[in-house]
């Protein structure tokens, strides 16, 4: 009798231990519906680390009985073009589509509002700032996958060298500390280049939406706004001119690379990887690459800090930079199996899949996943692993700022960035170039019916 009681107690203990451990593990979602015989089509972003997530789809297929067919794997800009053409021609016959907070405003007439498909409990873990960016005219069009925002990356050797610090003090009268303002960055970057401590002082992507976004970020960090409340262009104000002049002077003085205007994210990251750049804003997603000593000379030699505040010309309105966005999933309005598509999105954005993707270095959009990855990093060999995550969580929570959520964001960018390039290259003055961009933008916005 006692033996039986003992065995029962042991069994109970084992079952409860298993239950606790199961609860402690991140959970999948979206597996609670029988989707046998349904073929879910998905058009998604592809390349490199993005595709690792799709390995988990076999679990979804096994649990629900559905099959998932990936009909497109393209980079973000190519996906944007595909979606536009497919939506226009009615060819968006897929149930799940890649989407992004920067692009979604263009697609809203062609997307299924998702608020009725997700309960409050299901949405609760996601960052409110990102859900706000995913909601247009009261409709939720995106379920976030992962977020991105940029901290300052700086070379540690430059800030730990006492001789450099002393020389900087002599030259400027201020201590050499990790910069917190755009003006400090300007002074330090110039100092490092002029005195031969670093080949380059700063870098930034110099074309397409990447350049427009970086200007937007510097402009709003300095207290500006691209458009006023009536959507009239406002970027050619005093702040905009100051930012554009700063960029032009950096180019003229060799602070930024001579091929800045042909650089996108990979080219910019390459310069920092080579240990050639003193300071820069960079997306968190490049962290694993920079820390790979086999690929990058800067591995182990860089630190991270919160985004800079803008130029003092903005007065009290200056604030931290934080141009941000989130990769996400949407359901086209023409999806043959919208409910099945929603189930797949619930699975792909679940705590478990999001956690596994966060382990690759992507920034989570869910609070529960943040807790897990920060706890995981607490005993990391490199303390920067944990600092990075804590800093990122602050930036995603407090500094996350998307571009204007208007369908004209990309057409605006295509008007704006060539003018800014012309200013940077010295082809035109800052005021003249921004005024020309504002005139073209106004015409485009008028055509779109804003005024």
């Amino acid at each position, binding site marked *: 009798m006692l033996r039986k009681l003992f065995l029962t107690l042991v069994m109970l203990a084992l079952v409860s231990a298993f239950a606790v451990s199961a609860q402690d593990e991140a959970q999948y979602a979206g597996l609670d519906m029988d989707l046998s015989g349904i073929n879910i089509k998905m058009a998604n972003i592809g390349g490199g680390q993005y595709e690792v997530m799709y390995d988990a789809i076999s679990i979804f297929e096994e649990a629900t009985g559905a099959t998932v067919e990936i009909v497109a794997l393209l980079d973000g800009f190519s996906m944007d*073009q595909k979606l*536009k*053409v497919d*939506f*226009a021609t009615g060819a968006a016959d897929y149930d799940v589509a890649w989407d992004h907070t920067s692009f979604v405003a*263009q*697609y809203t*007439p*062609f997307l299924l509002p998702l608020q009725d498909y997700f309960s409050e409990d299901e949405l609760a873990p996601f960052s409110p700032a990102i859900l706000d960016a995913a909601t247009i005219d009261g409709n939720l069009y995106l379920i976030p996958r992962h977020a991105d925002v940029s901290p300052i990356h700086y070379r540690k050797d430059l800030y730990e060298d006492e001789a450099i610090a002393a020389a900087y003090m002599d030259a400027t009268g201020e201590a050499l500390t990790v910069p917190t303002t755009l003006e400090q960055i300007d002074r330090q970057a110039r100092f490092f280049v002029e005195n031969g401590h670093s*080949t380059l002082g700063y870098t930034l992507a*110099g*074309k*397409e939406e990447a350049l427009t976004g970086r200007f937007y970020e510097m402009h709003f960090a300095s207290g500006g706004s691209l458009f006023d409340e009536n959507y009239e262009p406002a970027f050619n104000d005093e702040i905009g001119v100051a930012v554009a002049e700063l960029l032009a002077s950096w180019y003229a003085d*060799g602070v930024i*690379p*001579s*091929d*800045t*205007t*042909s650089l996108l994210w990979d*080219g910019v990251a*390459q*310069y920092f990887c*080579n240990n050639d750049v003193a300071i820069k804003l960079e997306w968190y997603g490049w962290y694993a690459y920079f820390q790979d000593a086999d690929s990058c000379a800067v591995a182990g030699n860089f630190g991270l800090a919160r985004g800079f505040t803008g130029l003092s010309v903005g007065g009290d309105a200056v604030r931290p930079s934080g141009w941000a966005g989130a990769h996400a999933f949407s359901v086209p309005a023409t999806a043959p199996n919208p409910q099945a598509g929603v189930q797949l999105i619930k699975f792909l954005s679940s705590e478990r899949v999001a956690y596994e993707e966060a382990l690759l270095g992507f920034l989570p959009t869910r609070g529960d996943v943040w807790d897990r990855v920060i706890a995981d990093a607490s005993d990391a060999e490199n303390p920067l692993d944990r600092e990075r995550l804590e800093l990122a969580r602050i930036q995603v929570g407090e500094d996350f700022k998307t571009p204007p959520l208007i*369908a004209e964001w*990309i*057409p605006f960018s*295509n008007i704006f960035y*060539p*003018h800014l*390039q*012309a200013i940077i*290259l010295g*082809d035109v003055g800052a005021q003249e170039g921004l005024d020309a961009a504002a005139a073209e933008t106004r015409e485009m916005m008028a*055509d779109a019916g804003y005024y």
Partner: protein
Amino acid sequence: MVANSNSPLGKGAAARLVEVSRIEAGFFPFALILPAVILILLVVGFPLLYSLYVSFTPYELLKPNSLNFTVARALRNYQKLLNDDIFWRSLLNTIVFLAVTVNLSYVLSMALSQLLARVTVGQSVLRTLLMVPMMFAPILVGMQFRWFFNANVGLVNNFLISVGLIQEQGQIAWLVDVPLGMITIIIASIWMNIPVMTIILLAGTLSLPTETFEAAEVDGASGWQKFRFITFPLLAPFSYIALTIMSLDIARAFDIVRIMTDGGPARRTEMLWTYITRLAIEDTKFGLGSAMSWITVFLSVLFTLYFFRQLVKARIVR
């Protein structure tokens, strides 16, 4: 069936029969090609006419209701383009790019074809090697040359640094500076286009009559004189065909430009087709993009007509 004068039907009836046969014969070939004509009209004609219609509307890809023709604004896209500085700039860039690329390609191809025509051993191997650039997709050629001319990690700058011609901090921004951006695209384009032109000119050279050259040799003509006064004029029809094909092909420059500079920076290398893509697809202004496409096609047709007139003249002279 043709009736002859000995026909028992008599001359009048025979003539009528001939007439009927002609009519039948006249219709029959057309009937045979009718399915192909219908297919071509559907596949080529309809899209062309549709895009012409779209060019008169304010159609935007993501605004289906904007596909709406009104007489009042029918010509607005065309007016807008004629007042668009970027359009004129991209047209000028395309003309410069076309003129330099086609002419340099022609000179180099002519030289290569004359050298190849004189090779007696291993000519087939050389011809095969010459065709290697044709085997690459333009997008790959663009990527390759973008890497060659990359300021930071590119082959050209690293070579110049290694031989001491430039300093590490003075890297040349090949894809950015004026006129280097355009020059790098022209180099890539010439590399890709020389083989086709050379093959056409080589075929022409090998088909020239040998008697003329023998007579010239007897008269003591030098190599240059033979080329200048015999080869070059006799190759004129081949030259015009090669130039026409290459011009139309190069004028459609898109892949290489898109990959190497994407029309930038600051529109410095913007061409017609990169601008059309930007307008029609990226900015979703399909009506405006269609209007620009039609202007471009119209210019191309004029250009082709000019070249064909030159070709006819050259054949008459020959």
